[in-house]
């Protein structure tokens, strides 16, 4: 049974070899679709099986992937990021920046309305941004620089900064979890630590709460008030045109049943088929596997508060012993679905490099063994948490256990369901009182592609992500990166951040894998992006 977790389809910027071929395929499909007589008679229903069960409906409150996809269905954003990674205006019509780069002014597109017919105003935008700012990490960074956020009139609002900030547009148009969706003021005023219970939005679809059966069925219908932009759709930018009347999310728990349902045509789109089935799906005549360029990264996280990994020398020894290929082979089956990547940033992203990687992740058990002796490792067991109910990551801990054992560590595997793991890893105490030493998880590439958004690189001790690395030097470099506006400076600082992170071994990057979406051939127009987007789809 899939749960929401850190994984989202990663963003990958370097065009793949097959990318060009796919482009030609799209425009052929689009032209054919246009030829069809508009306004078919029967209501067209699109059946999709999402990555996991939609439980929490507040995209600001949780970073769960399926909630974020739900957000893209019913809400709209000020800015979007297109397929090439460029930030483009979406709800915003025009915007301007003062000379001293401290005053940003934005005007909304005319005639924007919520699904209950009420017009979208600056007041709604301001309330939404303030709520988003409290929860999202990029939002928090942005609001540290915001002096004042106010409305000029119903369609124009301004952001006044204390000092210039390089990531204003990247923040407003970010793709990853806690997307700055715009909600009605009354909804956005819900305190950030309580979940909203009114699902009015200005996105391409409307959520049918009466037909919602949690754990089984989620229903959306076309939003009559939505006015798409004119540009062609690309990523979350461009016109979000809707060609179907109704979208149904069918929650299917069992991975094999998911694939069988797709093959038998009972569902049209399957977000994350289990890796074991891609070979079969590729061979199926009426199914298309949409290889995308957006991968996810596997991460092994050390708990730096508890022995043995409170000793940096032992963490370095682990980095030497681990090697990426066995993890990827065991978990992601066929080689066209994974690749090794010797960088803390996704390979192909702006700041990816091999800086500081020499001698690491080579599976050199002998050297690791000698490092253990030098560090006088006293045999304290390494407790690895293993989730049993998440098919996409449940095998990684076993591979880690074996490699660490080869390196001479004493290892103990503790299996539990994902929810227990999530709460267990928040425990800072010793292993005896429910603590831990190592866990493995995966992150969407776009959540790791710069020192600010990548949680693993945060070394602010208690405030850092679980594992709580503590290193003022790394924090100094990250603060420096935030203030840099020139891309060359950002690249240099980002590489220094990686080098420092590997020196204090905040975590072990274990390579990338892809989980392309599988779509039946009678459905066309799927937007290839690092997040799941369901507009622009046609079903014959």
């Amino acid at each position: 049974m899939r749960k929401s977790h850190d994984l989202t389809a990663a963003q990958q910027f370097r065009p793949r070899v097959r990318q060009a071929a796919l482009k030609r395929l799209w425009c052929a499909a689009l032209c054919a679709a246009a030829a069809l007589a508009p306004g078919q008679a029967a209501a067209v229903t699109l059946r999709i099986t999402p990555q996991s069960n939609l439980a929490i409906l507040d995209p600001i409150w949780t970073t769960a992937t399926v909630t974020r996809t739900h957000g893209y269905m019913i809400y709209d954003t000020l800015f979007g990021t297109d397929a090439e990674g460029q930030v483009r205006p979406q709800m915003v019509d025009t915007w301007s920046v003062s000379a001293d780069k401290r005053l940003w002014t934005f005007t909304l597109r005319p005639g924007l309305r919520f699904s209950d017919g009420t017009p979208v105003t600056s007041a709604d935008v301001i309330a939404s941004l303030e709520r988003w700012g409290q929860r999202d990490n990029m939002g928090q960074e942005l609001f540290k620089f915001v002096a004042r956020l106010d409305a000029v009139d119903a369609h124009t609002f301004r952001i006044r900064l204390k000092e210039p900030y390089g990531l204003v547009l990247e923040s407003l148009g970010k793709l990853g979890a806690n997307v700055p969706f715009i909600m009605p003021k009354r909804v956005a005023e819900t305190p950030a630590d309580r979940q909203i219970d009114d699902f009015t939005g200005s996105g391409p679809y409307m959520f049918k709460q009466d037909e919602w059966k949690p754990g089984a069925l989620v229903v959306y219908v076309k939003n009559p008030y939505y006015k798409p932009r004119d540009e062609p759709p690309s990523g979350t930018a461009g016109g979000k045109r809707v060609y179907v009347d109704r979208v149904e999310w069918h929650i299917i728990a069992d991975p094999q049943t998911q694939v069988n349902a797709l093959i038998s045509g009972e569902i049209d789109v399957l977000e994350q088929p289990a890796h074991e089935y891609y070979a079969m799906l590729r061979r199926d005549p009426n199914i298309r596997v949409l290889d995308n360029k957006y991968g996810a990264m596997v991460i092994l996280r050390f708990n730096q508060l508890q022995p043995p990994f409170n000793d940096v020398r032992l963490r370095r020894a682990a980095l030497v012993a681990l090697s990426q290929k066995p993890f990827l082979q065991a978990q992601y089956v066929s080689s066209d679905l994974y690749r090794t990547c010797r960088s803390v940033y996704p390979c192909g992203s702006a700041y990816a490099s091999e800086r500081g990687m020499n001698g690491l992740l080579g599976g050199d058990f002998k050297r690791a063994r000698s490092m253990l002796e030098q560090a006088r490792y006293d045999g304290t067991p390494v407790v690895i948490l293993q989730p049993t109910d998440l098919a996409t990551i449940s095998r990684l801990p076993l591979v880690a256990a074996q490699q660490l054992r080869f390196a001479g560590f004493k290892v103990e595997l503790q299996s539990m369901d994902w929810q227990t793991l999530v709460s267990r890893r928040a425990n800072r105490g010793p292993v005896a009182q429910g603590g831990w030493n190592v866990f493995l998880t995966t992150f969407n590439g776009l959540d790791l592609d710069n020192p600010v958004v990548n949680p693993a690189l945060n070394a602010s001790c208690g405030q850092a992500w679980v594992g709580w690395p503590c290193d003022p030097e790394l924090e100094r470099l990250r603060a420096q990166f935030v203030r840099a506006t020139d891309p060359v400076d950002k690249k240099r600082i980002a590489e220094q951040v990686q080098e420092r992170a590997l020196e204090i071994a905040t975590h072990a990057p274990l390579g990338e894998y892809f989980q392309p979406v599988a779509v039946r051939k009678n459905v066309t127009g799927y937007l290839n992006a690092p997040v799941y987007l369901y507009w622009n789809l046609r079903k014959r």
Partner: protein
Amino acid sequence: MSAAAGIDSETAPAGAAPGIGRRLARNGAVRFGGAVLLVLLVLALAAPWLGTVDPTLFDPASRDLLPGRVGEVMTLDGNVLQHTFWMGSDGYGRDLYSRVLYGARVSLLVGATVALLALAFGTLAGLLAGYFRWLDGVLMRVMDGLMAVPNILLAVALVAMWKASLWTVIAAITVPEIPRVTRLVRSLVLGIREEPYVEAAVSVGTSRFAILTRHILPNCIAPLVVQGTYVCASAMLVEAILSFLGVGLPTDIPTWGNMMAEGRLEFTQYPQNVFFPGVFLALTVFAVNILGDGLRDTLDPRFGKRGER
């Protein structure tokens, strides 16, 4: 009244009826069930010498090999050696043949331990409920409560409660089985209590505890053994279901249940993951059930009574 002519040849005991042992051996079902279980036990115990490798070590490079193929296997000190995978390999590249044999140990252990524990606690509770009337009400309500909660859900909740280890899974499967044994023992005790030989024991001054242990318990053994086999069979199945739901034993302890649960993803393309453990589990559970049926037909007095009266 004059004693009748000494026709009475009754001083010497009549011909002895066949002992339980011989009657059991004659029953086909008992022979078949017993034989299969014996073979499995031998295979499980002799696993290290039957050309197996460490069931937990793997090399992802040789994953999903079809039965009979040759591939590589890592040893603990990290070097690699060639190995023929008689039953193919699973998703990690582990040798299925070794895992099925070592898995037999754990599955049989789970089945047997659950059966013994359930019988022990169930018999204790059943005896108390059956013999001491004031205890009966309370105890049986608790048992009804336990029985009203579906066993799989109770097991899932119990395993989720403690961290998943061999003993937590065994406890989780045992707890829902206890009420069934208790109800059986209680009904037996209620029946036996009324037997004249129990009343005779009362009249010769035997203490209540002695009556329980000397007279009532020994006469419950036969039906209990039969129930024990059914509990053992269902325990092995429940373990497989728990693994399927993701709350079973951790995968580094191989059991037929978690092998199948884990292998279900590759099932349609590489069926060996589910086929071999499935056949062994079905065969074992089948043998235990047949053994149970055979025992019941020979030991259960009700069937014996139908002979010439």
